[in-house]
């Protein structure tokens, strides 16, 4: 096996994106994603059984498309990497079953990796200056909202905090529904917020009161915010008043962005880590990137944001982490690992 610049194919099926990526060392060769998002739209959120069925249909064609995009053959591969967790169990199992069989059919080593750490690994691909550690990482999507301290990508990642109820992306979806907007909510809220005043309504910032900061210093909570928006809107409607859509959307978004960025910047400051990395699909939100960049600048923190195609769930980030493990000399995983829907972030690779 080429352990200096290994050619690795990564398979990601933890949520609603079937992702297959191919990397050579830290060079990105292919990143193909088949999304079942449209099928979930009518349900207003990701339906696990619909996602798992879609993965099974999409996986073969997606692997073929990735090989074509990278102009490589399965015979050229040095290793296969796959997401073992966290994520939707039934969805993960499709990728795990396929990855194991593919690896055996080609006599290749397999690396079972952590999805969240994969989001951090995405930053290594095709980047001009290498990722420096330690770094704080804020990962925000429809499935997770996590704050990590990454001391070493392949050997030392700590969970600082995470959401105790809804993921931030879920909050966008649910509030979009309150406002009568379609799924997925992120881009819809963004559109609705255009021209709105982010300070018009002071919506609550979850887990930021002094007593919350004791037990949940780095955790997030968005379900109270969602309820507050719903109550505010329903009170206006009950009173027969018009709902100022743009102001509600902008104020809600500001509450989410404020609490995400505040806790991430505070973590950098308190832990003395002058580096912050963003990842996850919600990073596509322009307001989040804007506020993060302003406050990082003001605090002297270096901010890194991978290209958006590598922020959303994808197979390239899984391949990237797999390649890092190979290059660091880690032994492959055995064949006995399964899908772990709650895989802790400290388990970067599953044996």
């Amino acid at each position: 096996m080429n352990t200096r610049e290994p050619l690795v194919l990564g398979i990601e099926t933890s949520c609603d994106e079937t992702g297959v990526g191919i990397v050579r060392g830290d060079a990105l060769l292919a990143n193909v994603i088949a999304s079942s998002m449209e099928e979930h739209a009518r349900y207003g959120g990701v339906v696990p059984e619909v996602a798992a069925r879609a993965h099974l249909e999409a996986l073969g064609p997606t692997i073929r498309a990735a090989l074509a995009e990278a102009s490589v053959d399965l015979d050229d591969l040095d290793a296969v990497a796959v997401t073992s967790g966290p994520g939707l169990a039934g969805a993960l199992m499709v990728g795990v079953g396929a990855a194991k069989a593919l690896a055996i059919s080609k006599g290749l080593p397999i690396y079972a990796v952590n999805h969240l750490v994969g989001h951090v690994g995405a930053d290594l691909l095709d980047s001009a200056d290498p990722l420096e550690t330690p770094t704080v990482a804020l990962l925000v999507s429809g499935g997770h909202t996590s704050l990590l301290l990454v001391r070493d990508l392949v050997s030392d990642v700590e969970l600082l905090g995470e959401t105790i109820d809804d993921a931030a992306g879920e909050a966008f979806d649910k509030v979009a529904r309150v406002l009568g907007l379609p799924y997925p909510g992120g881009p819809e809220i963004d559109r609705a917020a255009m021209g709105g005043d982010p300070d018009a309504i002071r919506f609550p910032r979850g887990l930021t009161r002094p007593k919350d900061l004791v037990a949940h210093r780095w955790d997030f909570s968005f379900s109270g915010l969602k309820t507050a928006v719903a109550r505010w809107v329903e009170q206006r409607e009950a009173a027969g008043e018009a709902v100022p859509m743009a102001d509600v959307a902008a104020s809600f978004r500001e509450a989410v962005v404020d609490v995400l960025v505040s806790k991430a910047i505070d973590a950098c400051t308190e832990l003395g880590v002058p580096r912050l990395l963003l990842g996850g699909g919600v990073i596509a939100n322009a307001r989040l990137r804007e506020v993060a960049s302003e406050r990082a600048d003001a605090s002297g923190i270096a901010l890194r944001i991978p290209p958006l195609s590598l922020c959303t769930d994808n197979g390239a980030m899984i391949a990237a982490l797999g390649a890092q493990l190979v290059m660091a000399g880690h032994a492959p995983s055995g064949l006995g690992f399964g899908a772990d829907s709650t895989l802790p972030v400290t388990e970067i690779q599953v044996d």
Partner: protein
Amino acid sequence: MLLAIDTSTGTSVAVVDRDRATHELRTLAEVGTDDTMRHAEVIGGFIRDALAEAGVEPARLSGVAGGMGPGPFTGLRVGIAAAHAFALGIDRPFVPVPSHDAIAWSRYTAGDEGPLQVVTDARRREYAISEYDGLDADGLPVRRSGPGLVPRDALPEPRGLRFEAAVVSAAAVGALAELAFAARRLPLTGDAPLYLRAPDVTPSAGKRVLR
């Protein structure tokens, strides 16, 4: 020579071959478990072990047969995903086989005769059911009806024998694929799993989120 995988009940992996001269079907290896919870964990080791026991390199296989269910979806998909990916890896065809057909074939080749009702657990107080009328001239089971779902308390009286299966043999899945290939009777079923149920969804609760 085929690799065969079925995860519609437990997990079963086999290597089968059909002698071109004598037409004899042989099971070179078969490994499995009736554990219905650990498909993703065991599938890789079973494939490796079956190939090792048969002494066969992946490149020597001519295809991969996969049991398409019916069966509990989460486990069923693991085997189909693995069979698809293995076939892709060796660049050979994937051959879908109805899992109930494999059960019926196993019974008939073990000596059962006449009408046969095959039932398997479909969860949610339902059975998956198929009815057969023996083997045809090519040695393939004649499916008269099914697979379909019936409530557990409304299982129709069998016209002959009834067999409730807790395991599906991948060797039988592979044997059917070999027989159907030799008789030019492929495909035996479509590429989609035999789910028999629409996905279970919780429809959008609508605009109001306050109760």
